[in-house]
C-alpha cells in the first residue's frame, strides 16, 4: 500500500483546491446555506464541465474517468476543507456508488452517464427516522404487483433528498427481516405519493430531507431481495469518503487556529507565543495528521478492494469523528469571544463537524464495527 500521493495526484489536489478557493469562499458558503436548495447551479456545472469531478470514479465505459477512491478521497478532503455547498457527496459519491454496487450492467449504462456529467443528480435513502445505519434498521417495504413495485415507509437524513432528480431507495420485501429481503430501487423525484420535506439541521451547509413514501412506484435496481451485501459495501465506501471530507475540515480548523494565534496580541505578545496555546496546537497537529493517515489508508484499501477495507473504513470514520469535532472546538477556544460569534467563520466548520460526527454512524458505532471486522 502506498504511503505517499503520486506527483499527478498532488497536482490534481492543487487544481481542485484552487477551483474551490475561487468558487467556495465563506461568503458563498454563507449565502448558500440560507437557501433551500443549498447549492449554486453554476458552480455545480463548472465543477463538472471544467474538472469532471462527478465522473471521477465512474468507469470509463460508462462515461466516467475511471479513477479510484484515492482520487475521490482527495476531492472530498478539499471539499471538506473549503466547506463546499454542493450535492457532491449525495450524488457523485453516494448515489453513484449505490448504482455501481447494486445495479446490473444495463442499469448502470442507463443511469451513470448522465450522473457522471452532472446533468442528473441522485440521492441515496437508507436511513429511517430510527437513525440506524445498517440493513436491520430498514423498515420501508416494497410490495410487488406483477412486474411493478410500490414503496411504503419513511426515510430520513437523506442528503439533498429534496432536490435530487431521483432517489436510490433501500427497502425490504414485505415480511422479511434482518439482512434478508434488502432491495434497491430508483424512484423519480416527482413520483406520485412521494413527499419530500427539507429538514432543519444544525449544519445548514449540508441539506437533509425527510421522504415519505405512500404507494410510490419504484424501479428495482439489481436483484430484489439480494441487496444486503451491496448495502454493506456502500456504507464502507460512504464512511471512507466522509472521513476524507472530515479530515479536510479538521486541517482547515488547525490552519485557522495557527493563523489567528500568530496575529492576536495579548499581554504584549502574540498569544501563539504562550506555551498553553502552543501545546494545544501541537496536539491538534498530531491528531489531525493521525486522522489523515487513517483516512488515506481507508481510501487506499477501498480502492484496492482490500479485505480489511471495512475495518479500516470504520477506523478512519471513528478517528475523523473525534478529531474533526475536537479541532473545531479547539479552534473556537483559541479564538476566544470572537470564536463564539455568528460573524466568525469557525462555527460553520464546527457545525459540519458536529453533524458529520454522527452521519453514517458515530465513533462508538464504528469502533464496534471496526473490531467486528478486525483482520487478526
Amino acid at each position: 500500500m502506498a504511503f505517499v500521493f503520486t506527483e499527478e495526484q498532488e497536482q490534481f489536489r492543487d487544481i481542485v483546491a484552487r477551483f474551490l478557493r475561487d468558487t467556495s469562499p465563506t461568503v458563498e458558503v454563507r449565502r448558500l446555506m440560507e437557501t433551500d436548495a443549498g447549492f449554486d447551479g453554476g458552480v455545480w456545472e463548472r465543477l463538472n464541465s471544467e474538472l469532471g469531478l462527478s465522473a471521477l470514479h465512474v468507469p470509463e465505459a460508462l462515461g466516467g474517468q475511471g479513477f479510484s477512491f484515492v482520487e475521490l478521497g482527495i476531492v472530498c478532503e478539499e471539499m471538506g476543507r473549503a466547506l463546499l455547498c454542493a450535492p457532491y457527496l449525495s450524488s457523485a459519491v453516494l448515489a453513484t456508488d449505490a448504482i455501481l454496487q447494486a445495479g446490473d450492467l444495463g442499469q448502470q449504462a442507463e443511469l451513470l452517464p448522465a450522473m457522471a456529467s452532472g446533468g442528473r443528480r441522485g440521492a441515496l435513502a437508507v436511513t429511517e427516522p430510527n437513525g440506524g445505519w445498517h440493513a436491520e434498521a430498514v423498515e420501508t417495504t416494497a410490495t410487488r404487483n406483477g412486474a411493478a413495485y410500490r414503496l411504503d415507509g419513511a426515510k430520513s437524513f437523506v442528503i439533498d433528498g429534496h432536490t435530487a432528480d431521483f432517489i436510490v431507495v433501500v427497502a425490504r420485501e414485505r415480511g422479511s427481516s434482518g439482512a434478508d429481503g434488502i432491495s434497491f430501487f430508483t424512484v423519480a423525484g416527482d413520483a406520485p405519493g412521494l413527499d419530500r420535506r427539507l429538514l432543519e439541521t444544525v449544519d445548514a451547509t449540508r441539506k437533509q430531507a425527510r421522504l415519505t413514501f405512500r404507494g410510490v412506484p419504484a424501479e428495482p435496481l439489481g436483484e430484489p431481495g439480494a441487496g444486503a451485501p451491496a448495502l454493506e459495501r456502500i456504507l464502507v465506501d460512504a464512511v471512507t469518503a466522509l472521513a476524507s471530507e472530515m479530515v479536510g475540515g479538521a486541517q482547515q480548523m488547525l490552519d485557522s487556529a495557527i493563523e489567528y494565534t500568530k496575529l492576536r496580541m495579548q499581554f504584549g505578545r502574540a498569544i501563539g507565543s504562550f506555551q498553553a496555546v502552543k501545546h494545544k496546537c501541537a496536539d491538534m497537529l498530531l491528531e489531525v495528521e493521525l486522522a489523515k493517515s487513517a483516512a488515506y489508508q481507508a481510501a487506499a484499501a477501498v480502492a484496492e478492494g482490500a479485505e480489511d477495507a471495512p475495518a479500516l473504513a470504520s477506523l478512519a470514520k471513528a478517528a475523523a469523528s473525534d478529531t474533526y469535532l475536537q479541532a473545531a472546538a479547539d479552534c473556537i477556544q483559541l479564538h476566544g469571544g470572537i470564536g463564539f460569534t455568528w460573524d466568525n467563520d469557525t462555527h460553520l466548520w464546527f457545525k459540519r463537524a458536529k453533524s458529520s460526527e454522527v452521519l453514517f454512524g458515530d465513533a462508538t458505532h464504528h469502533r464496534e464495527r471496526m473490531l467486528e471486522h478486525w483482520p487478526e
Partner: protein
Amino acid sequence: MSERSEAEVRAEVREWLEAHWDPDRPLVEWRNMLADTGWGVPHWPREWFGLGLPVPLSQAVDEEFAKQGAVGVAKAGIRHLAAATLLEHGDDFHKERFLRRILTGEDTWCQLFSEPGSGSDLAGATTRADFDGQQWVVNGQKVWTTSAHHAQYGLLLARTDWDVPKHQGLTYFVLDMEQPGVEVHQLRQMNGHASFNQVFFTDARIPPEYQVSETGNGWRVAMTTLAHERRGADGLRAHAFASERVGRIYEEEAREIATIMEPYKWYPQRAGRVDLVLPRARETSRLDDPVVRQEVAKLLTLVKSAEWTARRARAAQEQGRPQGPEGSLGKLAASHVARAAARVHTLISGADAMLSGDDGPLDGLIAEILVSVPATSIAGGTDEIQRNIIAERVLGMPKEPRMDTGPFRDVPRNVGSS
C-alpha cells in the same frame, strides 16, 4: 554504484549468504566479514562499510538475512546513535577507528548529555572540558546515562567556553570510558531495573583527535544525535530478541543480548506492548465487555494511525521529497500510544493489575508495562519539549521570550551546578 533493482539485490545477497553464512563461525569474525563486504549496513556509504543502497533496498537485504536466519551487525543500543553521528560529523580518523567496532559489537557506547542541572535544557551543560596544551581535561557530572556501566566510549557534550551564549560554548567529544578519571554509579529505576547511571569525571582525559565538533560548535552535532534518537522513537524500531537456533554464533549473540542488551530488556514494555492487548482481551474474555471493546478499538485506532503516519514520513523521505509535518510527530505519538496501552492493559487485567512478579498477570509482564511506560514521555526529550519543537519549528508559532541569551556565565541556573 549503478542502479540495482530490488530483485537483483535480493539475488546477490542470497548468493553471498549461501556461500558464506555459517552458524559455527565466531560472531566477531562474521560481523567483520559483513563490514568488509558492505552487507551489514548496505545503506551506509561504500567507503564506510556500506554499499550506498537506498533504505528500501537495505530493508530487502535485512529480510533476506532474516529468511536465512543469518545474524546481522550489532545494531541496538546507543551505538547506532554514535554511528549515525560519526558518519555525519566525524572525520576519517573517527570513522576508521570507531565504526567497524560498533558494527562488530565489540564496543558499547553511551550518550553523556543530561546532567543533574540540565536535562530538557541540554545546552545548559556545566560539565567542563579545558585544554591543557596537550589534552582535554574533563570535570563534572552526567546523569541518566543509559549503558554507561558497560560502555567503552561515550558521546560527550561539554562546556569549553563560559563567556559566550550557552549554545555557542559547547564542544562534542568521544570520551574513553575506561580510564581512572571516570566513575560510574548505577541508578535504580522505578521499575526495578538499573539501566541508567551517574557518571562522574575527575580530570578525565580526551586526546585532541577524539574531538568531533569544532570547539564551540558541539550543539549542532548534538542535534544530529538527538534527531536520530527521536526518529527511532516512532515505534518502528525492532528490538533484539535472542534466537533459539543452535550454532556457536547464535550462542554468542544470545550472550551479547543477555549482557550488553540487558539494559534494554524492558524497552518493549515501556512502549506499552500493544501486541499483547488483543490476545489478552480474548484470553480473559474481557473482549466481550462493550466498554473494553471501545477502549481496545480506540487504542488500535491510535496505534495504526501512528504507524501509518510514520510510514508516510518515511516514504516521503525515501522518495527524496520534503517531509511534511508528519515527520516530527513520531515521538509524541509513541508517548500517547504507550500511555493508552497501559490504560487498556489495566482495564483488561482488573484487580490483577495490582499484582506483580510471579503473582501478576503474565508472570509480572503486565506490571512491568504499567511501571515502565512513564519513561517514554521523558527519555530522549519530554513530551512538553516535543510540543515546543512542533509548535515553533513545524507550525512556525512565535518563540517565547528567553532569559538565557547572554553569556552563559551570567545565566541563572540550578544551585549546585558549577
